[in-house]
Structure formats: structure tokens, C-alpha cells
């Protein structure tokens, strides 16, 4: 059912060494119960620079489009934008290797894109159309691709799931990690502590990632958390604080962490210090618990895209024209996605009944006609799509 439409494979080490490469100094990491940590000397190749720029720009542009579609009432219900946090997902993705898994919370659009979906699939899912990532059955927060176990609509529910995924990896002797993300708000869910205990008890290759954007919905971290040092809150789980606005620092930290887990020493708890420009969701203007000045200040001084752009331009790694060309393709890709997401059809009504159970004969579902039960014509959305010639 899920097709990986594009392979965004990680650039190999050899290629990186062969191309133009520059080094930068990243902010100091803070370590918890670790003797050493990732290097603050981070380098990047031309190809990677262009790729990271493209990915971050596309996510930013796609989220702006989602926000506009919401305001036009073409996206209904819920919608949580990732703008400001792009370096987190792009940096982590850059350090991932085949077979690594990700599970996150509701702010999942960028991740869905990075892990194999197109901008069209993301936006069409938000508008509930057939070309959506899960054909409109999930909508906001519920998007999935192979090895991406989703967005999740319940605060903190993904945390123990990530530990379970990591256990399976360990059991199968895979050299893989499960990146398990949550926000500073969900860091206070009891499930995290239950999951951390199991993960450490069994040394699971899970990297718990707290994307600390400063606010759990409308409450600042200082008002919700007895300790805001989220990288230390796993107690016996070692942790690292990372500047989440620096895509290179994030990538470096996750390369290091992956190696650490591959050596059988997992889990880890990483805090990415980041910021969200929009409100928690579309119903939150995001200005009642912080000042507009504060948001402007972050945009000016810490923006993950602007900062990265300055670095790669001033070091002559890439040219202004190259970045402009990327901006242009990103714009047209997102514009196309918007058009598609607003004109595509929706699955026919019987999709209401598909995917209820997997391994039983067609269920009699009450409903469909006013007084009768109804045998599901299709058990799975996949079968329904096949019958429509769309699979």
C-alpha cells in the first residue's frame, strides 16, 4: 500500500570525502552520564549542503501551504506545523541508515516527507484525498511510510512503541535504531519513564528525542516541568543536549548516537533545543503566551534555514544562484502539491469499512444501509484501490 516514491538515500562517506567540503564549529553539546560525546567540529559536502537546504526549504514551504489551506478551510480539523524545527528532522534523517525507524507525535508532516512521501501525499492527506499518504483515512497526525511508524494523535503514546520497535531490532540483530520523538510537553507523560526503564533494562537501540520547542501547547517549559534539562530526565539513560537549530550539529549528534547504539550501549535521550514559529495547532495564534518580539528574535538570530544558508554561502561551498534554483523547484513542487491536494477525489464510501480487522473473513459491519448489517466488500483499502485501478 505504501510506495516509497523517491529514494532519498544518504550520501555515502566516500562521496563526501571526494567533494568540496567545509568545516564549522557547532555549539557545545551538554552531556549526561557520558564520558565523551559527538564532535563540535562538523563538516559538510557540497552535495549534502544543497540537499539539506532543499529539504528544509521544502518542509518550510509545505507547512506554509498547509497553513494557508487550513485558513481556506480546505484542510479541516487539526494541523500542527513544523516551521522552525526543520533542522531537527533533516539532521536526524541525514544520519539514518537503511532499516532505521522513526516514530513521532502529531507534528509529523516534515518527517513524512523525509521518509518517503511526496509533498502531494502529505498535503492530500491533510485535505483527505485519495492521493494522500494513507488515502485520506488518517488526516492530520496520522501519516505513515515503511519504517515510519507515524505521527500519533495521543500525547506520549508513541514513546513506549518506540522502545518496542527497538526491541525487535535488537532481537533480529539489526544494526539499527528507533528514533522516538516527542515534545517537551509529552516529556511529562508517565509512559516515557516506563519506556525508558525498559529500554535501559534491556539496552535497547532506541534514541529518545525530546524536541524542546519551548512550549507544550500554550505552557512554557518552565511552567510545566520541574526540570527543563530534558536530556537528563532519563536519569540512568545517558543523554545529550544539542542545538536543534543547527542541522549539522543534529546530524553529528545522531551519527555519534547511532554508533553508540550499534555497539549495544543504547538507549540514549537527546534533547534538541528548537523553536516553533506557529501556534501549537491552527486554533492557537501562538501569541497569547509569548511575545511577537520573541518569535521575530528567533527568526532573526536562530532560524535553522537562514543560519545554514549563511554558512554555506559565506564559506563558498555553494552559490546564491544554486540556492535560488532550489527555491524555484521547491516552490513549483509545493504549488503542484497544493493543486493536486485540492482537486483530487476522495475514496468511495465503502472505505469507511476497510482496515477494521486483518485476518478474519469479511466482517458484518452494522450500518451502510439504514437497518441492515453489511458484509465488507473489501477488507483492506489496498484491495479497494486495486478494484479502482489505483493501486
Amino acid at each position, binding site marked *: 500500500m505504501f510506495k516509497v516514491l523517491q529514494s532519498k538515500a544518504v550520501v555515502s562517506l566516500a562521496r563526501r570525502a571526494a567533494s568540496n567540503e567545509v568545516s564549522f564549529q557547532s555549539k557545545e553539546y551538554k552531556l549526561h552520564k557520558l564520558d565523551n560525546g559527538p564532535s563540535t567540529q562538523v563538516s559538510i559536502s557540497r552535495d549534502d549542503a544543497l540537499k539539506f537546504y532543499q529539504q528544509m526549504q521544502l518542509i518550510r514551504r509545505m507547512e506554509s501551504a498547509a497553513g494557508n489551506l487550513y485558513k481556506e*478551510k480546505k484542510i*479541516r*480539523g*487539526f494541523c500542527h506545523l513544523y516551521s522552525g524545527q526543520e533542522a531537527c528532522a533533516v539532521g536526524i534523517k541525514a544520519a539514518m541508515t537503511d532499516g532505521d525507524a522513526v516514530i513521532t507525535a502529531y507534528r509529523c508532516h516534515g518527517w513524512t516527507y523525509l521518509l518517503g512521501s511526496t509533498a502531494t501525499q502529505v498535503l492530500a492527506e491533510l485535505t*483527505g*484525498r*485519495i492521493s494522500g499518504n494513507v488515502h*485520506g*483515512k*488518517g*488526516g*492530520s*497526525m*496520522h501519516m505513515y511510510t515503511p519504517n515510519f511508524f507515524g505521527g500519533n*494523535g*495521543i*500525547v*506520549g*503514546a508513541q514513546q513506549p512503541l518506540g522502545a518496542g520497535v527497538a526491541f525487535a531490532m535488537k532481537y533480529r540483530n539489526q544494526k539499527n535504531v528507533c528514533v522516538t520523538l516527542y515534545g517537551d*510537553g*509529552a516529556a*511529562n*507523560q*508517565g*509512559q516515557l519513564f516506563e519506556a525508558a526503564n525498559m529500554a535501559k533494562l534491556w539496552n535497547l537501540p532506541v534514541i529518545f528525542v525530546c524536541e524542546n520547542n519551548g512550549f*507544550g*501547547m*500554550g*505552557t512554557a517549559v518552565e*511552567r*510545566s*516541568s520541574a526540570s527543563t534539562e530534558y536530556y537528563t530526565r532519563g536519569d540512568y539513560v545517558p543523554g545529550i543536549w544539542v542545538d536543534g537549530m543547527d542541522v549539522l550539529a543534529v546530524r553529528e549528534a545522531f551519527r555519534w548516537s547511532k554508533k553508540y547504539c550499534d555497539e549495544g550501549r543504547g538507549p540514549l535521550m537527546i534533547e534538541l533545543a528548537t523553536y516553533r514559529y506557529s501556534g501549537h495547532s491552527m*486554533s*492557537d495564534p501562538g501569541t*497569547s*503566551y509569548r511575545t511577537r518580539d520573541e518569535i521575530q528574535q528567533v527568526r532573526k538570530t536562530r532560524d535553522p534555514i537562514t543560519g545554514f544558508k549563511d554558512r554555506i554561502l559565506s564559506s563558498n561551498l555553494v552559490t546564491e544562484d544554486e540556492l535560488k534554483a532550489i527555491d524555484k523547484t521547491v516552490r513549483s513542487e509545493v504549488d503542484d502539491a497544493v493543486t493536486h491536494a485540492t482537486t*483530487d*477525489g*476522495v*475514496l*468511495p*464510501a*465503502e*472505505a*469507511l*469499512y476497510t482496515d*477494521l480487522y486483518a485476518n478474519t473473513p469479511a466482517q458484518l*459491519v*452494522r*450500518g*451502510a*444501509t*439504514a*437497518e*441492515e448489517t*453489511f458484509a465488507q*466488500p473489501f477488507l483492506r483499502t489496498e484491495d479497494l484501490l486495486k*478494484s*479502482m485501478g*489505483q493501486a
Partner: protein
Amino acid sequence: MAASSLALKTAVRLPARRFASHFTYQPSVAPASLGAERTKMNLCQAVNNAMDIAMGTDQSALVFGEDVAFGGVFRCTVGLQDKYGKDRVFNTPLCEQGIAGFAIGVATIGSTAIAEIQFGDYIFPAYDQIVNEAAKYRYRSGGLFSCGGLTIRATCGAVGHGALYHSQSPEANFTHTPGLKIVVPRGPIQAKGLLLSCIRDPDPCIFLEPKVLYRQAVEEVPSGDYSIPIGKAEVLKTGKDVSIVAWGTQVHVVSEAAKLAEEKLGVSVEVIDLQSIQPWDEDCVAESVTKTGRLIISHEAPLNSGFGAEIASTIQKRCFLSLESPIERVCGWDTPFPHVYEPFYLPTVWRVFDAIKKTVKY
């Protein structure tokens, strides 16, 4: 819809704009006994007003939950912190199990805890605390302790676009647990009176607020301190041919269907707002069905093991010899609450109308 038409092989084209809501709000008029002075309020303001009165009259009353300090996502608690201070109105971390357990502790020592769970769908992390701790405290301590001061407010129901985790109606998950009281208001007047009853009730209460009504439902609400008793249903419209029981938003759906049935079919429908789901007013429903001989129950939650099943079972026993047709249930289908399929999922006016037709012509 005929079964054959279901083998549709093409994608459905969406209309340019979807319908704003699946019902028309039918405002109520408060009886004179609730006081002469009235204020125009929507459901959100009525809930706010009830909490304001409860806090003003009970120094031990506390309001807490996610983001409630500045009003909460739905603005129901707006202004309460300014008026009663940060000690009495405060934000909690995002941890529903913690909120519920904390509230039970607060209530067990004798204070009044008004806890907000932002969405009924998020109440499940708190389910253990509510079912195993709150509901059984009195029973298991032989009456030494209780957490009667506990009221959990949560939003519920369809809102047009809420999808899987912002639309559910979890009342039946809780009616299976003795020790809890569950109330769902249909509008501002009821919300204020019933919430005050819940807050002051000596047993733990779950108060489910249909979020789609927060702004849409506007009524002239009595300004004073009044309560509406828990456990009493209200007959909104008398009739002689068929009784319909509903609660929350669905009251407005069935009222509209009742009107339609009178116009188009000449059928006289009695409409009952159950409003209190546990304990529920068996006598009121039984009396009505004894008169009409027919019963339809309608709720948004799925049919299977919904509270309609409990009503149907009780009424068929109490009214067996009066029944002229099988009891009908018009409910959500047995699927997760769907995203784009919400219009197909809901027990709409047309489905209720159809049930009236079938019941009367049985």
C-alpha cells in the same frame, strides 16, 4: 443506499464546501423556577459561569488541566485565574493519568477538584485512575474515604472534522463502572445547572461537553446559582406514537427528525433528553414508552455496546407488553471515528427519520 451501489468504482468528488454542521441547534427556554434574571451565553460561557459560581461559593474548589490558566483551548476557563488566583486555577503538565490521579488525591482529602481533560479522546490514559481509583474509593474503604469532590470535565463528540482522536464519545466506557456519574448537557442552560450539580455531588462525576456546541449553542441562561438534578431526564416534546431518547448534540438531531416526521408522516414523536447517562432516568423513559409503545435511542458513539444497548435491554423488560415494535438504535457505525467519512458515520437526521418510519410502520 442500496447494497449494489456500494460497489462504486470511482473516487468521490468533494463539493467545494462541506456542510458546516450536521444539525440545527434548538435552543431551550429556562423555567421561571431557575430565576428571573437571564444572561445570553453560549455553552462555553455557561460552563465558565458554573465554575465561577462553584469557586465563589466553595473556597476549596480548584480548577486545573492543560492550559486552563489562560482559558484552555476552548476558552472555557477564561478569566478564572485572574479572579481566583494562581493557587486555585493552574496549568498541569500534559499527563492525563497524572491529572486524574492528582485530582482524585485532591478530592479524597475533602477539596473540590474540577479537572479538565482537553478531549474525551485523551481520557483513556486516565482511564485506570478513573475506573480503578475514583470509582471505587468509597466502596473499598467501607465509606471512610471518597473522592466525591471530583468532577472531570472533558469535551466529546463530532465537530465536523475532528477525525480519530478528537471526536469520540466515551460515555459508555464509563457507564460500565459502578461508582461514577456521567452527565452530557444539550445546551448552555443545562450545562450550567448540571455542572454545578456535578461539582457539588458527593460522588465522582464525569461531565462530557459536546464541543461543537461551545459557540453554536446560545441561550438565555439564568444568571443565578441553580442546579439541575443528576439522574433526571427531560421530556422536551410530548408525543403519542414513538419515543426518542438522545443526549448531547444528538438531542438536536433527533428533535429535527421528530419535526420532520410530524410534517411528512403525521407521526407524533416524544423527544427525551436523557442528560444524565449514569444514573439514568429509567422511569421517565419507561413511562414514555408505555404510552407510545415505541422507542428509538440515538447516540454518536458506535452501536456496539453503546449506552443505547443498556436502555433497550431495560426498557424491553419494563415495557414488554406495551411495545408495538422492536426498539431501534440509531448510532455511529462500528468503525473508528473516520476522518473524511464523518458525514457517513454520524446518525444523521435522515437516519433517525428513517428509523421513525420503520418503527411506526412495523
